[in-house]
C-alpha cells in the first residue's frame, strides 16, 4: 500500500494483523519530511516542526508490554505545537516560549497515550493560534501541499498540511474561530471542531478560553470519528468540560438520511460568496435532498455580527491568557534591565510577534475602564443572541449546511498586510465558536486554481454524531481526488 493511501482506519486493520509497524511508519514520515526539505530548501512544506523518535520507541515498547488490546493500536499521532506533551518543547510557534519544555501531559495527550496512540511530534501553527494562513509562526510559513504558493490555512495549518502531505497519519489541532475547519478546507481534508465542553482543554495552551476546542484533522470522516471517541469526555481538571455521555461515533456512521432536516442559512449563501464556492456547496445540498433529507432555507440574521463579536471577546480573553508569558518563570527572557518592570517590557516586546501583539492590544483596549461596556459587555450580549438564533433553528433542523470559507484559497503573502481581510477568512466558521456548537469541514470540489472547496456542517451541542454521519455519507458517495503537488511531481 502506498503511504498516500493509508489512513487511520486502514492502519488499525493492518496493525491488528501486525502487518504494519508504527515505528517504521514514523520513520517513513520522517524520510518524506527530509526529502521534501532537501528538494525544496526554500519552499519546504514545514508542517512538522518537532519529532521525537526515541520517545515514540519508548511509547511503543510500553504499549507492547501491556497485554490489553488497545483502541489506537500504536497509531502515530501528531499534535499542534500548543498541546502540552511532557518533555516536548511546547512553544506555540512563538519566540516567547523558546525552549520551554512541558513538565506534564495534557488530558487529551494522556487519553491518546492511554488508548495506545503514539505522540511523535509537533505540527507548525500560527503563533499562539492567531492567524488564518500559518504565516505568523516564528518557525516559518507552512506551505499548502496541493500547491506551494498557497496558504495551508490556519491556525492549525501544520496539522492540516502534514496529513495532506503524508507527513503524518492523523493530527490534532485546536479551533478558536475556525482554526481546524479552515485549514482542513484549504488542504482538502476533514476537520472537526467538537462542541465547547466536549473535549478537555487541560493542557491546551489557551488563546481564548471560552472559544478554544481541540479536534481532529484527518483524511476521512471515519478517522475523525475514531479520534473523537478517544479524546471526548468530561475532565475534572477542566471546569468548563461537560459531563455528557460520549457516543460511539464510528458506530453511528451510515445512518439513513430519511427524515433528516438540514437548514441552509441564507446569510451564508449571498452574492459576496465566491460563485465557484456557492455552486459546489449548493450541489452538496442537492445531494442530501436526493438522498432523502429535507433541505430548507432559514435565516440567522445576527451571524453577520459573529466576526466583530469574536474579535472583541477572543482578544479580550487572549490579552489576559497571554499575560503569564512574562519571562519570570520560564521561556524567553530579556534581563538586561535596570528595573524588574523592564523585564516585562523587553521580554514581551521581543518575544511576541506582530499579530499576537495586535490582538493583545485590542483585547486590553476593549476591557479597559470606560470602554468595557461599549465593547466587551455589548459583545457578550450579541454572543447570547447569536447562540439563541442557532438554538431556534435547531428546534426544527438537525444540521446546518454552509460553505466553510466564503472565498477561494489565497496565496501566501496575499492578505498578510490586511488583517481585516485575513479575519474574514473565518467569516463562516467563527459563529460555531461564538455559540459553542460543533462544526465539521469536508471537501466537495476543486476550484479553478486546482485547490479544494469545502462545506461545513453544524449541529446542536453534543450532536457530533449527526454531522459525522452526514459527512460520511457524502464522502462515500462523492469521492474526489485532490492530488498533492509533489505527488504529481514524483
Amino acid at each position, binding site marked *: 500500500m502506498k503511504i498516500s493511501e493509508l489512513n487511520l482506519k486502514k492502519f488499525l486493520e493492518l496493525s491488528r494483523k501486525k502487518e504494519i509497524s508504527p515505528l517504521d511508519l514514523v520513520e517513513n514520515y520522517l524520510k518524506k519530511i527530509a526529502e521534501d526539505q532537501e528538494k525544496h530548501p526554500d519552499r519546504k512544506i514545514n508542517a512538522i516542526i518537532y519529532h521525537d523518535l526515541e520517545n515514540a520507541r519508548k511509547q511503543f515498547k510500553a504499549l507492547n508490554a501491556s497485554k490489553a488490546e488497545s483502541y489506537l493500536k500504536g497509531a502515530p499521532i501528531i499534535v499542534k505545537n*500548543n*498541546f*502540552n506533551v511532557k518533555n516536548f518543547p*511546547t512553544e*506555540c510557534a512563538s519566540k516567547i*516560549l523558546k525552549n*520551554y519544555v*512541558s*513538565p*506534564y501531559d*495534557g488530558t487529551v495527550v494522556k487519553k491518546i497515550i492511554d488508548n495506545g496512540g503514539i505522540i511523535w511530534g509537533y505540527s507548525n501553527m500560527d503563533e499562539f493560534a492567531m492567524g488564518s494562513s500559518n504565516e505568523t509562526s516564528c518557525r516559518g510559513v507552512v506551505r499548502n501541499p496541493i500547491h506551494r504558493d498557497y496558504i495551508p490555512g490556519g491556525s492549525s495549518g501544520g496539522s492540516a498540511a502534514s496529513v495532506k502531505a503524508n507527513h503524518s497519519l492523523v493530527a490534532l489541532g485546536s479551533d478558536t474561530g475556525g482554526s481546524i475547519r479552515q485549514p482542513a478546507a484549504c488542504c482538502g481534508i476533514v476537520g472537526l471542531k467538537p462542541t465547547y465542553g466536549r473535549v478537555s*482543554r*487541560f*493542557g*491546551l*495552551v*489557551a488563546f*481564548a*478560553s*471560552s472559544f478554544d476546542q481541540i479536534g481532529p484533522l484527518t483524511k476521512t470522516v471515519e478517522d475523525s470519528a475514531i479520534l473523537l471517541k478517544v479524546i471526548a469526555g468530561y475532565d*475534572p*481538571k*477542566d*471546569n*468548563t468540560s461537560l459531563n455528557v455521555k460520549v457516543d460511539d461515533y464510528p458506530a453511528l456512521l451510515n445512518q439513513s438520511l430519511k427524515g433528516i432536516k438540514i437548514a441552509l442559512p441564507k446569510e451564508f449563501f449571498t452574492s459576496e460568496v465566491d460563485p465557484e464556492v456557492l455552486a459546489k456547496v449548493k450541489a452538496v445540498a442537492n445531494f442530501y435532498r436526493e438522498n432523502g433529507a429535507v433541505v430548507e432555507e432559514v435565516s440567522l440574521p445576527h451571524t453577520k455580527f459573529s466576526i466583530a463579536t469574536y474579535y472583541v471577546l477572543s482578544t*479580550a*480573553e487572549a*490579552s*489576559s491568557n497571554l*499575560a*503569564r*508569558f*512574562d519571562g*519570570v*518563570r*520560564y521561556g524567553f527572557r530579556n534581563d538586561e534591565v535596570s528595573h*524588574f*518592570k523592564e523585564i*516585562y517590557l523587553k521580554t514581551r516586546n521581543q518575544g511576541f510577534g506582530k499579530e499576537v501583539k495586535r490582538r493583545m492590544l485590542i483585547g*486590553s483596549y476593549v*476591557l*479597559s*475602564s470606560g470602554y*468595557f461596556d461599549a465593547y*466587551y459587555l455589548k459583545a457578550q450580549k450579541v454572543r447570547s443572541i447569536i447562540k439563541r438564533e442557532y438554538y431556534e433553528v435547531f428546534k426544527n433542523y438537525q444540521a446546518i449546511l454552509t460553505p466553510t470559507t466564503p472565498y477561494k484559497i489565497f496565496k501566501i503573502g496575499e492578505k498578510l498586510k490586511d488583517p481585516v481581510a485575513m479575519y474574514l477568512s473565518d467569516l463562516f466558521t467563527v459563529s460555531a465558536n461564538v455559540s459553542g456548537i460543533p462544526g465539521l469541514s469536508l471537501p466537495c470540489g476543486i476550484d479553478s486554481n486546482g485547490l479544494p472547496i469545502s462545506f461545513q456542517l453544524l449541529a446542536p451541542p453534543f450532536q457530533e454524531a449527526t454531522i459525522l454521519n452526514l459527512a460520511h455519507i457524502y464522502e462515500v458517495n462523492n469521492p474526489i481526488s485532490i492530488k498533492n503537488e509533489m505527488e504529481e511531481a514524483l
Partner: protein
Amino acid sequence: MKEWEAVIGLEVHAQLNTKTKLFCSCPNRFGDSPNQNTCEICLAHPGVLPAPNQKSIEKAIQLGLATKSHIHLLSYFERKNYFYPDNPKAYQISQLKKPICEGGKITIKINDKKNSYTKDIHLERIQIEEDAGKLIHLDSDSNNAQGIKKSYVDLNRAGTPLLEIVSKAEMNSSLEAIEYFKTLRNLLLYLEINDGNMQEGSLRADVNLSLREKNSRTLGIRTETKNLNSFKSIEQAIEYEITRQSQLLNENQAVVQETLLFDKKRLVTKPMRSKEEAQDYRYFSEPDLMPIKIKPSLIEELKNNLVELPQEKFNRFLKEYQLSNYDTWVLTSDKFLADYFERAVKAYPEGAKRAKKICNWINTEILSIVNFQQITINEFNLDSLHLATLIKLMDEGTISGKIAKTIFPEMVAKNASPETILKEKNLKLVSNEEEITAIVKSVIEDNREAFEKYQRGNQKIAGFFVGQIMKATKGQANPQKVNEILKKMLDS
C-alpha cells in the same frame, strides 16, 4: 477648631485553612521551604486550568451564615489583571460583580472603662479569591559582595484561598475598628475556617478612613491603608491617619484620595500610589470557570451543622456556669479561651459549681501572663487539667490560695501538675491543731502591745495577727484553722 469624626471601613483578608490551594491540589501550608508547594497550575504554566476547591466555597458559606449574610445561589469568579512577579498568571481570580455573600452584619461590644455599648457593623460583601505569592527582597548587605539588590519569588502562598470580608464604613474610632477586627477574627476561629495567626499573615486588614465634621452627614475624602497585620498596627495606623487628616482639614487643606502603607518603625502612613496612577485591572468574568452554583440543600446542611457561635456560647455560659456578664464576655470573645475554661471545668467533677473560681483564675492569673508575654491562649504552656487540679486542692483545703499563687508560675513554666511542684518544694498545708496553736501562741507573745489593743476593743487588729501567723508558716497553715484557733486564744 472644628470637631472631626472618623468614618472607618475595614477590608479583611482571611486565609482559609483548607488542606489544598483554591485551584490546584498543592498543600495550603505555611512555613515550608520556598516554592516547595507549587505545581504547574499555581506556577501558571501554559495550558493549565483552575479546578475550584469545593471546601473553600463551603467555608465561605459558613461565614455567610454566621454573619446572617445573603448567600447567592449563583455567583461568578472574575479575573483581576495586573503584572507583578508574585502574581504568576498576571491575573488574580477573584470576585467583583457578584460575590458569594452580600449583606450581613457583625455585632461588636465595646467594654472599657469609659464606654459600654453594642453596635452592629454591616457587611458589604464576602468574596472568595486567591492569594498572591511573596517577594523577598535582599538588600546589598546580605551575602553579596557586588552590592546588587536581589529579589526572590516564593510562590508557596500563590493560589491559596482567601475570603475578603468588606465592612461598610460604620466604625468611628480605632477602638471600634479593633473590636470589629477581634470579633471577626473570633468568629473565624469559632467556625474553624482560619487559624487567626496574624504574624504569619493569615489575617490582615486594609483600613479606609475619612473624616467628617461631627454631626454632619457629608463624607470626607478617604484614604486606604493596606496590609495591616496586627491589632497594634491597625490602631496605630488609624490614630495616625485621624491626626494627619484632621491637621490637614484644620489648615483648610484637602485630603488626597490615595492608597497608603503603614511604616511600623516610624509609625506613619506613606503613599503607595495615588488615584491618578491607579491601575486599570480590566476585570472580566473568568472564562475558565463555570459560575459557582450553590444548592439550597447545601446551605441547609451547613446551617444545621454550624458550630456554636460566640453569642450562643455566651448565652450558654451565663446559664450553665452562673458567671457575670463581663466574665462570660471575656471568656467567649476568644474561642480558645472559652475552650480552655470549659476543659478545666469538665476535668474537675465539681467544676461546674466552681466555675466562678476557675474563671477568676483564667481572667486574672492566666490572662495577665498571656497579655504580658503577648501570646495567645493556645500558646500558653499550662494544660487546663492542671488548673482544674489546683482549684480542687484549694477546695479540699490541701493548699491555701497563697500557696496556689506561689506555685502557679512554676506550674506554668514546667506545664506541671500542682502535686509535682508541691512535692518538689516540699510544701504542704499545716492543719495540725497543736502545731498551729503553738505558732499562734508565740505570735501573740511576740506582739503584746497589739494583743492589748485587741483586748481594749480593737477587733480589726486580728487581721494583723493572721498576717503574722501566715508569715511565720510561709503560708502553709490552713487559714480556716488559723482563724479558729486565733479567735479562741484572743478572746480567752
